[in-house]
């Protein structure tokens, strides 16, 4: 279980990215973290595994305060926190298998990882995960030979190879098309259910967040302004998080598209007239 207590991050430039964020993430709960760009979503999840150093506050994973660990202990703690990234962050020139096995780096010594001689159990597990995300046939391909959706699946397999107790997921669908986005979100949620894993998903797309998470946390300039079930995201709440906007239009994707099209048409007509 994860418990965040008074987490604050002030960057060297003086920008306050997070102020006094506290919440708990029980087992198996998928938390959608929403908020406008620059609200501190990325900073928040990076403060948990300390890719970004928090300025103050505590991050309890089970009985360990991650914020207080020294380098060696931090590496050991990071092994149990899987992370999935926006642009997949696969090592492009390594094979798919190497990318998945890199999830075991914290568990094996340097020499083993250098010679790529992982323990049999790790290799079997890596194949099992590749099979789970449907990429069994691609194990020996180089990561840059895959499509976006496939790469994100490799990213998921890598995070799961760590045998995590917590998943941190940073904009998993930001560079994917709508259909692939939904498939990836569904896969993530299924896996969290299977393994009873808590997950914090930092996500731009409000509709997607509502559809797939158990709980929504809204950030606005580094402060938590909403914490509740997806159904609690009323127009008033969205306005509080993101500012004034036509939220009904956003919910109806189709009507939004139509609107954009109409606007484009008007623009084209305007240009024709100008000519």
């Amino acid at each position, binding site marked *: 279980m994860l418990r965040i207590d008074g987490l604050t991050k002030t960057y060297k430039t003086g920008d306050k990215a997070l102020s006094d964020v506290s919440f708990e993430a029980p087992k198996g709960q998928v938390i959608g973290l929403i908020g406008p760009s620059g609200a501190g979503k990325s900073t928040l999840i990076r403060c948990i*595994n300390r*890719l970004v150093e928090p300025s103050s506050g505590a991050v309890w994973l089970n009985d360990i305060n991650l914020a207080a660990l020294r380098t060696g202990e931090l*590496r*050991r*703690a*990071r*092994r149990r*926190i899987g*992370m999935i*990234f*926006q*642009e997949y*962050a*696969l*090592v*492009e*020139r*390594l094979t798919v298998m*190497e990318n998945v096995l*890199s*999830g*075991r*780096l*914290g*568990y094996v010594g*340097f020499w083993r*990882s*250098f010679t790529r001689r992982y323990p049999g159990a790790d290799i079997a597990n890596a194949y099992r995960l590749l099979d789970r995300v449907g990429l069994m046939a691609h194990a020996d391909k180089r990561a840059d030979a895959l499509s976006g959706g496939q790469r994100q699946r490799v*990213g998921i397999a*890598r995070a799961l190879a*760590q045998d995590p107790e917590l998943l*941190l997921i940073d904009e998993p669908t930001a560079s994917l098309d709508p259909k692939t986005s939904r498939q990836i979100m569904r896969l993530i949620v299924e896996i969290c259910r299977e393994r009873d894993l808590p997950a914090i998903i930092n996500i731009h797309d409000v509709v997607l967040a509502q559809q797939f998470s158990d709980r929504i946390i809204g950030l606005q300039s580094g402060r938590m302004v909403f914490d509740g079930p997806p159904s609690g995201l009323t127009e008033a709440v969205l306005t509080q998080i993101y500012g004034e906007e036509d939220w009904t239009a956003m919910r109806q994707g189709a009507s939004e598209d139509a609107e954009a099209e109409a606007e484009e048409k008007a623009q084209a007509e305007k240009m024709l007239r100008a000519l």
Partner: protein
Amino acid sequence: MSTAYPTTWRKPPQMIQSRGWRIALAVGAIAYLVLAVGSVEVNWARVIAGMERAQRFIAGFLQPDFTTRWRDISNGLMESLTMTFTSTVVGVLISIPIGVGAARNVAPAWVYYICRSIIAASRALQEIIVAIFFVALFGFGAFAGFLTLTFATIGFIGKLLAEDIEDIDEAQAEAIRATGASWLQLINYAIQPQVMPRLIGLSLYRLDINFRESAVIGIVGAGGIGAALSTSLSRYEYSSAGAILLIIIAIVMVAEYSSGYLRKWVK
């Protein structure tokens, strides 16, 4: 209701705003150039004598003599090639840890400053100066040349490798760091795959630079083909010198072509 927009546009001056200063600077620069060229003393008699020698040199170049001094040439060539290859391999091996240490994003500050100063020292000294120094220390011959080229390779590869490491895609390194990987594992899994093709390319490039340099430093006594060239020039054996130059050109071209091909292949 249309507004009258201007129909002409000129690019505003980018560096110096005032017109007076622009003219003054241009006139000043031209005046200095004229005076400077005027101050170069030219001994025309010597130039004419030089032209004569150039003619003989070109004649020798057109009728290269590979046979008369073939023993000297082939020995020098072997020495140069050995020196080039060994110094590139040793230099690259030494420059890898130094290059990693000189990359701000993977090395702690104190290591960074040490490695940067090693690189700066190596780059500040031109090969010929280093060669003269090593020849004075260890005597004439290929060993001084080997040390010189190794030293120069460290600065070259170290600097470019460090810059390449600083330019990597940080997201990949972040992802590997997030798995709990150690520093060595981070280098092996996130950095090495990203910089390897460029490191191979740079090493091949350095190999052909080292060959060319081996010809130059030979002239100051560091052995190799340069020593043979220097000897034949000082004996006025221009046809042997021409042969040596042709061989150097041929080898450089082969190195250039094959390294280009290899670099494309390792992408």
